[in-house]
């Protein structure tokens, strides 16, 4: 699920290919050096007694010189070969994709803001930490950061690229195998760097379009009185000051967008499964789960918490 050796895109496959070649050639060189060393140890002992060890045999100097020269030549040749190989892989990764799906990814301490770019603003999706992409279509990421340097890394799909404040970089891949892939921030970015994961769900185009249609819709006003109470807790006890739910009065961009919160499988940037119990635990005291996270504890009563979580669970 999270491995460079299980590539799911032509880009990751090219990188894995290069890696296996480097591993193979490196292993062969290492074995050759070890074999040469063992051979020379054996030979010296067999040919000459211990008293003469310090004296080189006649003609040995020029022999050693030839061997060292040959070995240096082969080493340089191998390195130049790898340099050319590396450049050719770099060319594959640097090609501009044709007709890509563009996703704007913004790094925050410690979560990922995801926006599906669209000329029509009503068709834009804003979500967090988990994104769906179609299989067989190039996906291009525009990478930015809101605070410090982060790095985007999906081991199964492509290489790494940094998200730098005040700067915009891009990276792309084309998933060719459906599946759920886990990524990770790959540049130390503060206390909870390790708990800054993201998930990419690659799925067939038809399924992806179904997901997109659901994700682009706004939430409607809840009918149930418990849900209305939960929504009121959300709006009045501080949640809405950071989080947005499309279709309501909460529209802040400080924290993750919660419009389709329940459709995500994990919460807190890949830290916990999205279950009722975990959400309640997280809302009550995020600092116990992810110390240093920017979300403060919410001192809610049991009734309030229960209503709030029930409301959040309807945000499918």
């Amino acid at each position, binding site marked *: 699920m999270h491995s460079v050796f299980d590539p799911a895109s032509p880009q990751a496959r090219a990188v894995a290919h290069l890696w296996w070649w480097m591993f193979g050639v490196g292993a062969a060189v290492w074995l050759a050096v070890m074999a040469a060393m063992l051979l020379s140890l054996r030979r010296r002992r067999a040919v000459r007694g211990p008293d003469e060890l310090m004296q080189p045999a006649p003609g040995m100097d020029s022999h050693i010189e030839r061997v060292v020269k040959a070995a240096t030549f082969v080493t340089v040749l191998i390195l130049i070969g790898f340099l050319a190989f590396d450049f050719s892989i770099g060319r594959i990764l640097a090609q501009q994709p044709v007709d890509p799906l563009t996703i704007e990814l913004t790094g925050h301490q410690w979560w990922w803001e995801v926006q599906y770019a669209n000329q029509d603003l009503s068709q834009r999706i804003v979500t967090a930490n988990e994104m769906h992409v179609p299989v067989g279509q190039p996906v291009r990421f525009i990478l930015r950061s809101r605070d410090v340097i982060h790095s985007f890394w999906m081991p199964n799909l492509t290489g790494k690229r940094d998200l730098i404040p005040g700067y915009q970089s891009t990276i792309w891949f084309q998933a060719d195998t459906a599946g759920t892939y886990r990524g990770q921030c790959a540049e130390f970015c503060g*206390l909870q760097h390790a708990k800054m994961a993201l998930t990419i769900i690659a799925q067939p185009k038809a399924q992806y379009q179904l997901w997109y249609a659901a994700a682009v819709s706004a939430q409607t006003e809840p009918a149930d009185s418990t849900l209305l109470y939960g929504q009121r807790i959300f709006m009045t006890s*501080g949640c809405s000051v950071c989080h947005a739910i499309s279709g309501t009065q909460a529209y802040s961009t400080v924290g993750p967008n919660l419009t389709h919160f329940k459709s995500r499988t994990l919460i807190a940037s890949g830290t916990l499964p999205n279950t009722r119990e975990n959400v309640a635990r997280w809302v009550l005291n995020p600092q116990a789960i992810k110390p240093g996270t920017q979300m*403060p504890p919410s001192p809610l009563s049991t009734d309030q918490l229960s209503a709030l979580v029930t409301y959040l669970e309807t945000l499918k």
Partner: protein
Amino acid sequence: MRNAFLILVAIACAGCEREERRLNQPSPPAPTQFVAQVPLQPGPTFVATATEAPFDDNAYGTSEGERLFSQMNCVGCHAHGGGSMGPALMDDQWIYGSDPSQIFASIAEGRANGMPAWKYRLTNEQIWQIVSYVRSLSALTPKGARPSRSDQMMVKPAPAQTPNAKPKRSGPPGGAGH
């Protein structure tokens, strides 16, 4: 010699407070008594009292306050301390007082002419962090804990480079010394 050593240890221990990250700890309580600071009331304006803010000597808390100051859009009215629609926060004019409890009250309860109330939006801990950041802008917090740089365009040296200030008498804008 021994005394000097003890003094050094005391200084070192005092310095620890600065970098302490009080994560997963109960929120400090709101001040129990607010000093009334309404300029439109009859009688004299008040001299600042001297309550303590929990994060004044804490660099992490102060920088969290700086982050919240931007995220909660305090900058929308106060700019980065220089003021625009709202009053400047880096000078020594304090309409509602420069004491931590008074600034806490200004943020928590809101003030006339547009300052919204934040007590239902932010936790006490977050408000205290903003209090310390706001006080650091005019050099009212201990020098060692003040930000030594800022990511914004700066009109004066970073708070850590300004000498410590004395709490000022508060009063309405346009009064003496304005």
